[in-house]
């Protein structure tokens, strides 16, 4: 019975965090993009536009939900549902932290750990094509259809390098369950080089990671691979005909996919929650970071750029200091530190996503395919073969 309850609690927690993340991810993206383009980004709603996501959600909810007469209704309604639900499922197998004991209940920081965990996101990704494809087809509109076709073709093409890139680290840790993989990357070479997959002997997975990242962009239809919704070519691609909440769900699905894939990448390549350097010191990193953040906030509060900064920044500062204090409490560290590291890595990857979006132009369609099949796929293959060879040569991998 406890199992069920604990699971429910965990699900609730994860869901809440996940949703807020999704909501604020968009805010973060807009902010970062703005700063890349030396703008200020959303600033009106709430301090530093912090209330922007809420406003957006309200807007989308309250917009007229129109249903074009010429669409194939059933599929038209089904598509966004498929997209968003599949996007939200994947998080269930992601481990955020080690095995813990709280109040005598021992459990994983993970909703469920299945033996073939790694295959799960792949399976979901394989099916989640239908969301977009159906959306494109059912809206009965040539732009949407093109978008749908493009996206399904693109996803199929980029699933191969993605999968091959994922397989390589599996060879190193020799297990399919996410938790086992994360544990397999614990420890350090020479006491300071972490044994994450990208550093792990006998064949560090740096190339594998790069291939994974690139295919991840494609899988999530991000720039430079966002052809399915290339505005200037096909209006908005597969979701041209969608409005209000249905549009929002596509939107959410996209961000959810980003989070999922970055989480997977973190677990597979960046050693999940394993800290950058050994435990006793690494536990003091979060407090220091938050301390620094707090101090920075106070500094900005003291010499404000705008009028209301002198109120908001100190508040942030206090919040950060509180966080620092929280992380400084030893009994909590063993729970919070892993979460911090995990979040840090994921956040970093997401920043990379945004950064790329702010930097690169879009591919042309033939270039996209050409790149996938004639460059990325062979690279992934070679990487895999090399890994396999070296693992075979040095079985007891040091």
């Amino acid at each position: 019975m406890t199992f069920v309850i604990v699971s429910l609690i965990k699900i609730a927690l994860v869901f809440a965090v996940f949703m807020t993340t999704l909501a604020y991810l968009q805010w973060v993206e807009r902010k970062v993009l703005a700063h890349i383009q030396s703008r200020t980004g959303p600033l009106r709603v709430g301090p530093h536009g912090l209330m922007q996501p809420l406003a957006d959600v309200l807007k989308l909810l309250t917009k007229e939900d129109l249903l074009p007469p010429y669409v194939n209704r059933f599929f038209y309604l089904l598509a966004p549902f498929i997209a968003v639900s599949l996007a939200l499922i994947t998080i269930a197998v992601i481990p955020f932290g080690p095995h813990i004991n709280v109040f005598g209940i021992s459990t994983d920081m993970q909703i469920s750990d299945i033996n073939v965990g790694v295959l799960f996101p792949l399976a979901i990704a394989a099916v989640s094509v239908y969301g977009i494809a159906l959306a494109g087809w059912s809206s009965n509109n040539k732009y949407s259809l093109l978008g749908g076709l493009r996206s399904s073709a693109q996803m199929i093409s980029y699933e191969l390098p993605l999968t091959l890139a994922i397989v390589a680290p599996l060879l190193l840790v020799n297990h399919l369950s996410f938790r086992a993989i994360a544990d397999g990357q614990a420890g350090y070479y020479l006491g300071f080089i972490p044994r994450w997959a990208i550093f792990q002997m006998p064949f560090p997975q740096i190339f594998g990671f790069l291939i994974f990242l690139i295919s991840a962009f494609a899988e999530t239809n991000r720039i430079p691979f966002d052809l399915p919704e290339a505005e200037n070519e096909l209006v908005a691609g597969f979701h041209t005909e969608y409005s209000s909440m249905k549009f929002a769900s596509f939107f959410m699905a996209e961000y959810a996919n980003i989070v999922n894939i970055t989480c997977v990448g973190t677990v597979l390549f960046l050693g999940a929650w394993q800290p950058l350097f050994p435990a006793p010191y690494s536990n003091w990193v979060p407090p220091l970071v938050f301390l620094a953040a707090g101090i920075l906030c106070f500094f900005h509060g003291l010499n404000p750029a705008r009028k209301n900064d002198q109120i908001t920044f100190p508040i942030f500062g206090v919040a950060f200091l509180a966080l620092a204090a929280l992380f400084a409490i030893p009994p909590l560290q063993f729970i919070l530190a892993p979460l911090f590291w995990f979040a840090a890595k994921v956040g970093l990857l997401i920043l990379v996503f945004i950064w790329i979006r702010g930097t690169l132009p879009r591919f042309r369609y033939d270039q996209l395919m050409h790149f996938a099949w004639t460059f990325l796929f062979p690279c992934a293959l070679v990487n895999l073969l090399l890994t396999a060879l070296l693992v075979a040569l040095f079985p007891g991998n040091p």
Partner: protein
Amino acid sequence: MDTVLFVICAIVAIVCAFNLVLQKHPISSALSLIGVMSSLAVLYLLLGAEFMAMAQMIVYGGAVMVLFIFVIMLLNAGTEKNSNKSWFAQIAGLPLLLAFVAVVAFLIRSAVPGLKNVSFGSWWGGTAQNVGRLLFTTYLLPFEIISILILIAILGAVVLAQKEID
């Protein structure tokens, strides 16, 4: 718990299969087929074939059916027209089918002895390790042959699809 899951999945599968047969539009058939496959994947899990379940989703649910959907969209295949050809199939089909399922069901019930009872988690044989080990030892030759076969199939598909019609 098991029974509930099984019944749900079985019903979903059968309903989807019926839908496949009854729907007039290829896309709906394809979707229902995907439904069948997904529920089958769950059933595989119940039978302790976790790897197969995932493979089912990836290969069938992913690759194969996406191909189908893709082709349907590409050809923009509409709903099918009725044709009164092949009357024989129309007439003799249904009784034959019924007889078939009846006979098979009867055989399973009566003739197949000592069937186990399935309880979830009582046997985890189908882990990736086991399957892989067997695949690369006992069944290595078939495996290689199959891989060559699929390579040839890919080439054939490319050739066929590229061929210009004159």
